[in-house]
């Protein structure tokens, strides 16, 4: 009896030492299933990309149905952002920033379309449709061939034309921050 109490007491002291100094807890634990519902971000190394795949040909159809009304039939001439062309214009007086001329990572294209497009129904495209429409937009920019196909393995390997077009601000350079820690 005595030894049990002592053990409990010792355990309590250990807990106090390990935990942050808080009088009580806030919030509730997040379950893996619900985290998966919201955990949509995709990194340049492909971490976060879901299963599925899509071809340029499939993407042409997806684009016509979901994107062309705002971005134009071939990603040009729409009422919203131009998606195609502009390569070689960035150092000119009238730079044209598009997916093809400016975006450094193809993974960002998947992430953005998947989370934010189409504008009126964000998140409504399936994983397959998102891979397909990304493939089509990259094809329109001359980055993927007409028979191209994307999935979680091939998308991070796509080399965007402007991949080396960014220079980090010295104060917040990811390659140098936290190096000493």
């Amino acid at each position: 009896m005595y030894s049990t109490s002592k053990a409990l007491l010792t355990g309590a002291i250990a807990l106090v030492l390990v935990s942050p100094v808080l009088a009580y807890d806030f919030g509730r634990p997040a379950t893996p299933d619900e985290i998966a519902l919201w955990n949509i971000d995709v990194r340049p190394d492909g971490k976060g990309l879901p299963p599925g795949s899509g071809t340029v040909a499939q993407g042409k159809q997806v684009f016509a149905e979901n994107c062309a009304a705002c971005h134009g039939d071939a990603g040009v001439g729409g009422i919203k952002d131009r998606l195609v062309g502009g390569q070689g214009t960035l150092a000119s007086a009238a730079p044209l920033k598009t997916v093809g001329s400016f975006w450094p990572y193809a993974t960002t294209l998947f992430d953005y379309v998947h989370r934010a497009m189409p504008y009126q129904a964000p998140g409504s495209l399936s994983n397959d449709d998102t891979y397909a429409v990304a493939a089509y937009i990259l094809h329109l920019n001359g980055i993927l061939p007409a028979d191209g196909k994307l999935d979680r393995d091939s998308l991070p390997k796509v080399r965007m034309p402007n991949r080396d077009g960014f220079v980090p601000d010295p104060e917040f350079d990811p390659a140098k921050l936290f190096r000493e820690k």
Partner: protein
Amino acid sequence: MTSPGDIPVEQSGVNRREVGLSRRKLIAASASLAGSIVASRAAAESLADVPPREVGADLGGHSERSKYVKIARIPEAGPGQRNVDPGDAINSKAPLDKLFGSITPSDLHYERSHSGAPDIDPAKHRLLVHGMVRKPLVFSVEDLKAMPSISRVVFIECTGNGWENWKSADPNLTVQNTHGLVSTNEWTGVPLKFLIDLVGKDHASNWMLAEGGDAAGVDRSIPLTDEILEEAFVAYGQNGEPIRPAHGFPMRLIMPGLEGNLNIKWLRRLKFGDRPWMTRWETARYTQLRANGKATQFQLRMDANSVITSPSGMMVIKPGYQRITGLAWSGHGKIVKVEISTDGARSWKEAQLNLPVLPKAQTRFQMDWTWDGKPTRIVSRSTDDKGNVQPDRNSFIAVAGTNALFHYNAQQTWSLDEAGRVRNVLD
């Protein structure tokens, strides 16, 4: 929008803002100033002309502005795209020429969103904090309100503020058009480090993804520097009340001194990782294209800035006494000095700073001036406590080029012609 008609000529000689209050002061001040034509017109009005006192309105649930006060933001699209349909607007600019002091009223705080302001029921809103943590947690708004809180007055500035003047200066712009994408509020909420302690962040995690609950799911990668860990907080209060929907209800991230876009509104997810995610917003959008075709990335801090808000674009002034006033701010810290030139940046005088001067908040400055009626140019420049001096236009463009679109903090020059018309010019 301010037009010359909003600033009656007979009041412009003293204080264009305290119209109702300052009549008697104006008479006194004007009468003593040579060269002013204000006195005769204002003095003609007798106290007998002031309407008699009368019983006023019943008490109400909240206070409305006077019907005599015309003050509003202006929804605009990109540079040069003004007077657009609200559905085509991408931001809404604060009326800097009609505000006093340094705190922006909540309903006039500038607004920027990427897919509209969502209508969020706070009872159904949740904040997920996960990633490289020992214990992923879900918080409700009530959970946050129960935690130890801080309040802090800070400016938030869209990185597009000033973007009208990158390539040319439209002479018909007001200061609301040129600089209306910055505002200062008191925000109340929970320090980020408190949430970090609750979830037990892995020491190897130095980057955090913050994501909004708007349709676009706007998300940014945030480096967890010592400064950011010390100062960032998740706010639910704005100027003493729950945050308004346009500004992130029911909770948003506050990142003092850093890009407006990092202050994620309608915050619903914080994820800890060990590198940036390279979201659309930190690659394709909020990066600054230089003249050589390379873009600066992760330029997160808002630099030293200032602007004269009166006299400013589209106002008309008379020769004689002028009170020059404006706002200064820096994402590096406190404003320590604002200088004003009334001769086109040839000579400078130090302006008075209104107290309190707070770090990473807007500071009101003012200076007396007597305008001799000759055409000239007026300009302000700020200096912060880290020694950063707001650059002149030419020096700034020499470094930044004219394609950057974001982070414009060059000195703002207003020209005055012989008729007292104030206009936007580059330098």
